């Protein structure tokens, strides 16, 4: 475990160097962009100095990385707000959507995957396969726009997008969450379905399950206790990874549904060459990714006592 944590730290350090280098390698001048088209050279120079961009690159990196270690991610070029406050502002929306999507995904994947594993190669199985493949074969933005036109436009059942905090308007919160969660959930659900199917299949064939059945335990008991427990392992992994991806922002869906998540923030930052925000966001995503991977490993050992590493 210690080794894994150490590896994560090394990876994180690497990511921060790559992020910084890549961000500064990208052509485009944040100052020029911030000023638009009409400005004077003096204005340009003054703003460049205020942003610290006139410093040597290596110096910029160490002052950024040093501050980042203390939790200070700098100030946005674009808005003048601190990066941490910009991220904090968007965190609730991103967390909401990510967990709602995982919920949708599991609601789809667990029954569908289990069902098709219980009757492999049957019509049910084939149907579930095709269904789940359809879910990941439609471009997300297309699915999102069609949903808006149907459910917000024609039927008028749901708002077209946006976000309201749960505490302010629970109904509005749920209404606005439904469509984006459905789009991202279907995609994640399709991926997870395949994993549920294969791990249940594998668990069904495992020795101790056969033994349990041979001992004459009722099928239901064998299934819920022995099979599901073993099938849980890969499910935890795949769900964890899906969560990591959802937390790093689902840019396209966020744009279409006007969902104020981290993906939009990062995209805006790329477009505006807002280095501090971009670096901060990517660093956060990397941390989330690594932490979730660590947690998944921990859960592994907790669920399956055979694994002790």
């Amino acid at each position: 475990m210690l080794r894994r944590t150490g590896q994560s730290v090394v990876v994180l350090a690497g990511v921060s160097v790559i992020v910084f280098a890549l961000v500064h390698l990208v052509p485009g001048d944040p100052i020029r962009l911030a000023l638009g088209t009409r400005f004077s050279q003096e204005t340009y120079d003054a703003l460049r100095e205020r942003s610290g961009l006139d410093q040597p690159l290596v110096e910029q990196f160490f002052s950024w990385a040093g501050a980042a270690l203390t939790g200070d991610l700098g100030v946005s070029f674009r808005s003048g707000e601190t990066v941490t406050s910009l991220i904090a502002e968007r965190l609730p929306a991103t967390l909401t959507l990510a967990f709602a999507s995982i919920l949708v995904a599991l609601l789809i994947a667990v029954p569908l995957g289990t069902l098709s594993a219980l009757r492999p190669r049957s019509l049910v199985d084939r149907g579930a396969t095709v269904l789940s493949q359809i879910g990941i074969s439609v471009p997300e933005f297309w699915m999102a726009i069609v949903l808006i036109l149907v459910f917000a436009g024609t039927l008028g059942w749901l708002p077209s997008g946006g976000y309201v905090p749960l505490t302010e308007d629970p109904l509005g919160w749920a209404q606005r969450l439904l469509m984006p969660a459905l789009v991202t959930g279907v995609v994640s659900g399709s991926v997870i379905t395949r994993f549920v199917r294969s791990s249940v299949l594998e668990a069904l064939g495992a020795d101790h399950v056969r033994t349990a059945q041979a001992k004459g335990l009722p099928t239901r008991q064998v299934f819920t206790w022995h099979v599901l427990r073993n099938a849980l392992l890969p499910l935890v992994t795949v769900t964890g990874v899906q969560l990591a991806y959802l937390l790093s922002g689902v840019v396209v869906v966020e744009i279409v549904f006007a969902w104020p998540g981290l993906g939009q923030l990062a995209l805006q930052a790329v477009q505006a060459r807002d280095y501090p925000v971009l670096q901060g966001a990517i660093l956060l995503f990397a941390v989330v990714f690594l932490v979730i991977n660590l947690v998944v490993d921990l859960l592994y050992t907790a669920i399956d006592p055979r694994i002790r590493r």
Partner: protein
Amino acid sequence: MVGRQDDVSRPPEVTVRASRPLALAAAGALALTACGGGGESVDTGGGGGGGGGGNTLVAAVSAQPDQLDPHKTSAYPSFQVLENVYDTLVVPNAEDLTMEPSLAEDWETSEDGLTWTFTLRDGVTFHDGSEFDSADVVYSYNRIIDEELQNAYRFANVASVEAPDPRTVVITLSQPTPNLLERIGAFKGMAILPEGAADQVDLTTEAVGTGPFTLESSDATSTVLAPYEDHWGGAPNVEGVEFRYITEPAAALTALQNGEVQWTDNIPPQQIESLEGDDAVELATTPSVDYWYMSMNYARPPFDNRDVRRAISFAVDRAAVAEAAWFGAAQPNQTAIPEDSFFYNDYAPFEHDPDQATQLLEQAGVSTPLTMGLMVTDEFPETVTAAQVIAGQLEEVGITVNIETLDFATWLDRQGQGDYDAFLLGWLGNLDPAAYYQEQHVTGGANNYQKYSNPEVDRLLQQGAAETDEDARKEIYDQAAQLIVDDVSYLYLYNPDVVQAWVPGLSGYQIRADKAINFEDVELP
């Protein structure tokens, strides 16, 4: 956030869209019979959030303001909001964009045109309750000048800004500047802040203006304004304005049609025709003071050759380009300044004429096929559309156009470095002819990226910038424009319309050519 809307106070708006079945068929989606229905409308909720009640205007805009400091931002989404929060000394009239009093009631110009004396309005207060006087003007202008902020260039001719008494501001110039009013009043980038504001509040997220609305909150979903009851022009009629950011046009339009929002400007031109026949939506268009153009790089042969540029100018069918990009909502124009302007010049020497283009290319000794890179940006999708049409037209005269679609940051970089054959872009919100022509065409001008240089044009532009007689000034700019057009310094394409839509029955709002969004007098149905 504004308050949750009281459902009882306002009947739900149900829109049954007759024009939708096609879309549904395309989507292979649900049964059409499920349309609309009486009580099924969405809880429009006013964005969901706090007070406000049913009298809050929700406006769908396409992007979030980058920051709210009027002196530092250059982003249009910021000015959409700031227009309602801050005031300037003078302001463009909604009808013809001539300058009229705002915080300044009156002004005088000295005989030599070098001293402008402004008399300020009485009884104006800032949102923090403090009284407005001349010290605030001096502070605001000096902040822009001393800190070299965004709009410092607008004060290039200003020698000093002084306040001899609380009601008087004197601006002294280094040379006559007939368009001074435009320079200090064209938009809210020249807003008046209370003295010392930058040290007392964080202007990037807070606002202390004199405008009809106060800034209540701004987050990643929307910016919310509350009425300022003590506004010098009277309190607004609505109980608040919420600017909600909806990037995807289809979503913005749907939100307007089902009553979630009451106003939007996020309308793609192709929707204009279908919206004109839509009873659930009030559509408005008006010619803008924007223009779009193509610019060729004089440093890259053969585009330094006047005949080659003229050939290309003859080969481009401006009407087809405007029609393709704007579906009829744009007027082809060869001189940039739109027809409604006093400075409009009816000069159009380039009839679409591929034969003459071919002949000119031969005359220039250019062997075809000639390859030309054309740089456009997805930041302005109309440039991408226009480029494709232009590419088709130039193909006819033996010029192969390679379209390069870049993100705006890269685009600006390459423009700055002169690393392009040609590009498409527009200049937005131009009020004075100097704004149309000066920096773009004068030798060494800040925006003369194409490196055009014509001594006669230089002379005329300098003369025009200082001429105080309106008619003489127009005459000068007419001459300059003809030279610029003939030389094809810019290949002017068209002036697009401003396109906005709102719910039927909304009143007290006026669509403006300069795209300023002012909700001071707006009333909801």
